[in-house]
C-alpha cells in the first residue's frame, strides 16, 4: 500500500503516492494536477524512498506548509497536515506490519557476467 494524501478542504479525490517521484502543480504536465489559483504551475515534488515521503517546494509563490509551518523540504509523518498553496491534505502513511525483510537480499546483477561463470574467457598472464 502506498502513502496517501487525503484532502481536507476541497472536493478533489485522495492523492495516492504510487510512484517514486511525483510532480504537483497546475501545469498539465504534472503528475498530480491541482487547478487552483493558489497553486503554482510546478509547485512541489514528492519523493517516496525507503518508506519515507520527502516533499520539496519548487520555488512556488504560495509555498508549502506542514502543520502550519512553511517548509522548503521536509519528511512527511503520519497525520501531518499538509498545505500545498491553500489546499489542505492529511498525510496517511502505510503502517509497518511485518518485520523488515531479511538483509540477505540478492545483490543486483552487474553489467557483465562474472568472469568465473564464463568459460570462454581465458585470462592470459602477460
Amino acid at each position, binding site marked *: 500500500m502506498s502513502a496517501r494524501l487525503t484532502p481536507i478542504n476541497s472536493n478533489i479525490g485522495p492523492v495516492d503516492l504510487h*510512484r*517514486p*517521484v511525483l*510532480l504537483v502543480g497546475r*501545469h498539465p*504536465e504534472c*503528475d498530480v494536477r491541482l487547478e487552483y489559483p493558489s497553486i503554482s*504551475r*510546478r509547485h512541489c*515534488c514528492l*519523493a*517516496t*524512498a*525507503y518508506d*519515507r515521503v*520527502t516533499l*520539496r517546494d*519548487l*520555488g512556488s509563490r504560495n509555498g508549502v506548509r506542514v502543520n502550519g509551518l512553511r517548509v*522548503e*523540504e521536509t*519528511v512527511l509523518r503520519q497525520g501531518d497536515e499538509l498545505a500545498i498553496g491553500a489546499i489542505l491534505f492529511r498525510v496517511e502513511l502505510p503502517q509497518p506490519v511485518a518485520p523488515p525483510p531479511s538483509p540477505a537480499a540478492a*545483490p*543486483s546483477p*552487474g*553489467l*557483465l557476467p562474472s*568472469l568465473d561463470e564464463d568459460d*570462454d*574467457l*581465458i*585470462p*592470459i*598472464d*602477460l
Partner: protein
Amino acid sequence: MSSRLVALDEGPDIPLDGSMVVVGRHPQCDARLDSLRVSRHHCCMTNDNGEVVVRDLGSTNGIRINGQRVEIGRLRPGDELSIAHIRYRLESGQGHDATLAEGNGVLAAVRSSAAAALLARPAAASKAAAVEPRPLSVPLEESLEKPLAAMMREILPPNVADKCRIQIIVQMNEDDQAPANPEGDH
C-alpha cells in the same frame, strides 16, 4: 544504498545519498548547475531499490536517458543521463566491470585510440616485455601491474584510470576454439 552521477563532461559529480535530489540553477537546489541552459528547477530524482527515478520539472532543455528525451525515467547503473547538455553516468556504490569490447560510454572512445597507441609503441611494448620473470615465491604486490595493463592505464582518461583496476583478457573467437570434444554424444 548510495550511488552517484559521475560527470562525463565538466563539473562535479552528483552524489545521490538523500531521499530526494533536486538539480537546477536555483541557489536552493541540492545540486546546482551554473549554466544558462539548465533551468532553475531542472529535474528531481530519488533512489528506488538501487535504481534512480528521475523526473523532468518542466525544464526548457529537458533530460535524456541514453540519448532519449524523457519526462520521467529510470536509471540503472551504467546508464547515461543528460541534464540539458551536461552528461552523467550512474554508478552504484559497488564497483563494476567495464570492458572496451562492450564499447560503453567513456571507454568507447578509448577503444580505437588504445589499439592505435599500442601499435605505435612497439619499443615500449618490447621494453616492458623484457621485464625479468618474477620467482613464484615472491607475492605480487597489488600496485605492481603487468606491463600491458600499465600501458592501458596511461591511455585511459585520468578520471577513469584513477578508479579502476585493469585486467587484460583475450577472448577467443569461435573459429579459433579447439575442435569439439570427440567423445561427445552421438
